[in-house]
Every structure is written in C-alpha cells, then in structure tokens.
C-alpha cells in the first residue's frame, strides 16, 4: 500500500468518525491556515498610506501559490456579517522574505468592503482568499523602456511591479487630486532620488484632468515605450484610442478594476445558464415564474420568500428583491430566492 493510499484510507476513516461534518470542520477550529484547508489569510497589520488608503498585510494560508507582480487577489471579507468578495491588486514584491502578501486599498465613497478594510479591520481578522490571478503582468523579456500611466488607486498593481523589477528607463505618469493623495508618495520619490524612476505627478485639483494630448510633451518617446495603464475607465478608454491612432496598441496593457457597470433597470433578458434557455422578463415578475414560463425546471417552495426552497446561484447581472427593492449583483457564491427576485437588467441564473 502506498503512503498516498494509506493517507486517503485514514482520511476516509476520519470522515466516518466526524460525519455528518468533515474532519476539516474540526481542524478549522484550531488551524484555519493549514495546508489542505480552504485558502484563507490572517490580517496582521493595517498601515495607513494616505487619508483614505491603507495597506493590508496578510499572512496567507499554506496553500498560497504565490503571485506574479501586477496580479490581483480576490478577498472575501465579512462586512456586517455578510461575506463580500472584492479584487485588490497585490502591492508586495514576489520575493518578500516573510511570505506575507500586501494589498493596498483605497476607501471609495459608499464602498462597503474598501471602507471596512481601510477604517475598521483589526489585525487578527481571518479573510477568505483566492489564488492570485490576472494578465496585467510584466513580460519575461524585460523591455528597454517602460511607461506606467496610472491614476488614483490604479497605482497599486504598478507598485507591485516597481517593487519587483527594476528597469533601466522607467517613467511614471500618475494622477491624483492633490499631492497628499498620492499613495506610496515617499517611496516613489525615493526611487526618483535613486534615479530608478522618472515621475510625473498630475494633481487634478489644480492641473485639471490629464489630457492625453499632453503626453507628447510629458513623455516625448511614449510610442516607443511598453506601457502599463491602470485607472478609471475614462482614462483607459482614451489611452486605448490614442495608442490605436498611433498604431502602437500592442504596447499598451490595461487593467480595469470594474468590468462595466451593472444595469439595474426595469427587467431584462434572463439567461438560464445550465439549460441555455433565455426569456424576457419585466422588473416585477419573480424569476421563478419567468423560469417556469420558459419551461425551465425550477425548484420551488412556498413562493413567498420564507422557505428558501428555490435558492439558485446568480452568476451574472443583477436582480431586485421584490420585497425590499434591494439590488443583488452577481458574485461567485451569491444565491437568490427566485420566488421574490425579479430581473434588474440582464441576468444569468444557474438553472
């Protein structure tokens, strides 16, 4: 008998001991970061960067597989008792000795998770993690000349790159309302002093929004530079247009934090992911009725929102709770009660 077979046999026996729970349910009580557990992390410190941004130092569980500079991390945080998932760029270098990972979060107005992380999270808090992911990364072959075009918290993935890899010729154009809003300002100026970076700060409160036509004047050789851009959709859209106009779009790499806004209007097309059926729904008809009308096998129960016999994963779009008007947007793991939820724009549910 191989040791793997022995281990799996022992595990099966343990499962018989702990049923209906799993051995991991008990192990989680004492060692939530052990190898083999769901990937989690423990927050060890929250360091303020600016008035509304902070760096969160996370000790990831043993299952953490590391990251590539520029990638992001999905974090599941319990805010007011509810688990909410958000993606944040990793700002720590890949070779950090202590194995910790940092994300840097800017509190956006009305942002539940960002405000919670920046202002209320205490060291010791356990968070859920996914492995690092994202294509906004440096190529293996170092380009000779680099431009970083960033705005606001768009600086975070780039900071991960700057801390990881040195370039002979790197320029950064960064926009922030005022000097004190520039995240990592001291560190950036340190890089400038060491002549490792040329930094152009655009302070939008005094200089106005960055007009990309000024790029010729700020960075005359920008078309020759491999460019990484991250910031609000307006800036990225304008950059994509400009790079395309000059026929150098393959040099531009962009990272968007929000993939378009969810339309929470009055009804929309409902897609039933598992069966591939679609149906038009107004904003007042429960998705349960819509599905049944479309011939989809919908689980159902009390049809009044109490028994939870109808809960179904919402995989895309948004739905409105017919009782409260509250909008629920699709996220992995979000389940909705189809009997009291109506389409709020196009949406996909897993039936």
């Amino acid at each position: 008998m191989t040791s793997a077979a022995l281990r799996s046999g022992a595990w099966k026996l343990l499962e018989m001991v702990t049923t209906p729970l799993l051995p991991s349910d008990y192990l989680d009580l004492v060692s939530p970061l052990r190898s083999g557990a769901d990937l989690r992390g423990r927050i060890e410190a929250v360091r303020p960067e600016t008035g509304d941004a902070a760096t969160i130092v996370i000790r990831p569980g043993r299952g953490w597989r590391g990251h590539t500079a520029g990638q992001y991390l999905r974090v599941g945080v319990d805010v007011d008792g509810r688990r909410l998932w958000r993606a944040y760029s990793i700002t720590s270098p890949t070779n950090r000795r202590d194995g910790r990972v940092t994300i840097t979060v800017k509190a956006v107005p009305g942002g539940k998770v960002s405000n919670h992380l920046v202002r209320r999270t205490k060291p010791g808090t356990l968070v859920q993690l996914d492995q690092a992911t994202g294509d906004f990364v440096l190529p293996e072959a170092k380009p000779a000349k680099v431009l970083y075009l960033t705005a606001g918290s768009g600086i975070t993935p780039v900071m991960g790159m700057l801390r990881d890899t040195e370039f002979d010729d790197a320029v950064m154009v960064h926009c922030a309302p005022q000097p004190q809003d520039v995240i990592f300002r001291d560190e950036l100026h340190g890089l400038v002093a060491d002549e490792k970076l040329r930094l152009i700060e655009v302070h939008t409160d005094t200089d106005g929004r960055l007009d990309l036509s000024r790029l010729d004047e700020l960075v005359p050789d920008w078309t020759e530079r491999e460019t990484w851009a991250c910031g609000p959709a307006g800036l990225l859209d304008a950059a994509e247009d400009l790079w395309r106009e000059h026929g150098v779009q393959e040099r531009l790499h962009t990272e968007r934090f929000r993939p378009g806004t969810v339309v929470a209007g009055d009804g929309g097309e409902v897609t039933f992911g598992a069966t591939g059926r679609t149906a038009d729904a107004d904003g007042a008809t429960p998705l349960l009725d819509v599905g049944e009308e479309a011939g989809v096998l919908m689980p159902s129960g009390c049809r009044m929102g109490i028994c939870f016999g109808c809960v179904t994963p919402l995989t895309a779009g948004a739905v409105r709770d017919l009782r409260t008007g509250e909008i629920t947007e699709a996220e992995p793991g979000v389940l909705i009660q189809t009997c009291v939820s109506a389409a709020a724009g196009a949406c996909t549910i897993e039936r």
Partner: protein
Amino acid sequence: MTAIDPTAHLTAEQIEELGRELDAIRDEVIAGRGEKDAAYIRKVISAQRKLELVSRGVLLFSFFPPAWLIGTAGLSVAKIMDNMEIGHNILHGQWDWMRDPKIHSTTWEWDHVSPADQWKHSHNELHHTYTNVLGKDNDLGYGIMRVDEDQKWHPFHLGQPLWNFINACFFEYGIAAYDLELGKNLRGRRRKDPEFRTRARAVGRKIRKQVLKDYVIHPLLSGPSFLTTLAATFTANLVRNIWTHSVIMCGHFPEGVQVFERRSIKDETRGQWYLRQMMGSANISGSRAMHFMTGNLSHQIEHHLFPDLPSNRYAEVAVKVRALFEKYELEYVTGPLPKQVFSAWRKVFRLSLPNRKPTVEAPEREPELVAA
C-alpha cells in the same frame, strides 16, 4: 376551527393592518442583521463542535462511570444543539444572508438520519406554508395521531399514546419516515416510483453513516469501553429524540392552538396567513438556557411568523409580537415546558377516543402510518 372562532371579532381591514404591523417588525430585524448575529451563530457552532469533541473524547474511557455520565450528558447536549439551534435554523435559511457557504441552508448537513434536503422540503415548504391546515399539514399528528377534534377518528387512534411514545424515543427515524412519506409511498405502485426510490436510498445511506459512527466506530475506538460507549451514544440519541419531540409537540399540539380547514386558506391574504400562524402555534416560557436548548423553538409563534429570521432575534421579536396579540385581543398560547408537554399529552390521550358528540362536519382524512 373550534366551535367559536377566536378571530371572529377582527374585520378584514384589521387583519391586513395586523399583517402590515408584522411586516414592519420583520423589516426592522432584517435591516439590523449584522456582525453580532454572525458572531453569535459562529460561536454556537464552534461551541457545539468543541463540546462534541470533548464529550466523545471522555467517552473513550466510558468504562469509568463518572466518564460515562459526563460524556453522555455532554454528547446529548451537543446533539440537541446540532439539531435545534444550529441545524433546524440554518436549514431554514436563517443564516443564508451571511453568504458563508459553510453556514448555508443549501450546504448544511446535520446529525440526524433524515437528509437535510428531504427535511427541508417537508418541513419548510409543507409544514410552514400550510401550518395546521387539516389534510395539508402532515405535522398535525404526523399521520399517526389525531390531535384535533375535527380530524376523523379511526380505531387505529386508540393506540396513539403508545405510538406517540415510540415516536418520541425514535423521533429522528419517525421524521425520516415522515419526510419520505413512507406510509403513502409504500402503498401500491408508488413504491416503484424512481423518485421515491432515489430518496429512500439517500435516507438509507444517511442512516448507515449515522449508525456506523454512533454504534460501531466510536465504540470501537473506545477499545475496552466498547459496550459502555455504545450505551452512551444510544442514550444520547434517546435523550436528543425525546427532548426534540417534546419541544416540537409543544409547538402545535397544546390546548388552545387552532387548526384550519383546507378551504379556509383559499385566496388567503398575507394578513390572514400571519393570523393563521399566530393562532396555530404555541410558545414555551422559560430561562435563556431553556430557549437556547429548544433552538429558540420555544418562540414557536414568532418562528412561524418569521421562519427565516435569525433565531437569536426571536426573544426581542416576541415582546413586540405579544403586544400585537394584546392589541388585537388574541390569545397568546404559552406556558412552562412541563405544563405544555402535559397539555399536549393530555390531548393525545383524549383524542385517542372518538369525540363525545359528533362535530358539525368532519373533513375526510384517512390516518396514515408513517412512523418507523
């Protein structure tokens, strides 16, 4: 549906107003759910796991009488916590709002021979939607007993005090049989129904796992204490069964609780549905520990009005609900556990005999044997 309708003094408008007031109570709790509630259920789950672990650990030495006593007591409490405050309430979706996949009605499994998904169907959909409606809510006597004068008497009911006692001792098996609708499905062609067979196989698998754990694996792990550990787990299951059965009997069977005719729920409004829940349920009064050990089903009335509110909130909701009972001059049926258990048992005995005088109209309903 007793001779005098205790809600006859309410106008249709008053009933709808009552419904709106109850909706407001519900909305307030929903809006206030948060970190403290989440911390509460996590703490209870963690405490239950530790208690079960320690109790089973102590039972490894159950050969020593003090270890047997402590271990058995601990395991009984752990099993009750698992079934009541944790399992029943999570399976109701009371904690689904947390979006924690590990504490969710669709993923939870409990220390019970009825698989969670089957129980959710018969309990959440049928019992909670059709509470106390004759012929629709099989919880009314579980198909083996007559618990209202308006249920038709059958000689089979003569034995119902005994059926009820046996059901109490092996309650989890009674529930599993009931969730499978065994009585109905074993008759005639239905037993070959593939859907029924799939569900029956699932129950079989669950029973096998539970029995193997409690009566084979843990006794074996105890080595020389094999027999005493076997006796301990059997006792813990018995204690859990009798306790949960007693609590649940108190929810709908004591004197003063109303049952309803099938046709009375046709076109039922939200206000009328609420009113039926109010009149069809009974509470148990007692200390905080008492409420906890019943899984807050001691607040049965509040639970039936708002089955998906977190159980730790029923105590505060009860104050407001009780005020509404007074405002609308309705009887809030409640009492200490011994009194309510006695009241329910008295009814089981009384109704084992035919009614003294015939009721005006008896709905047709055949008794069904569902208990194991």
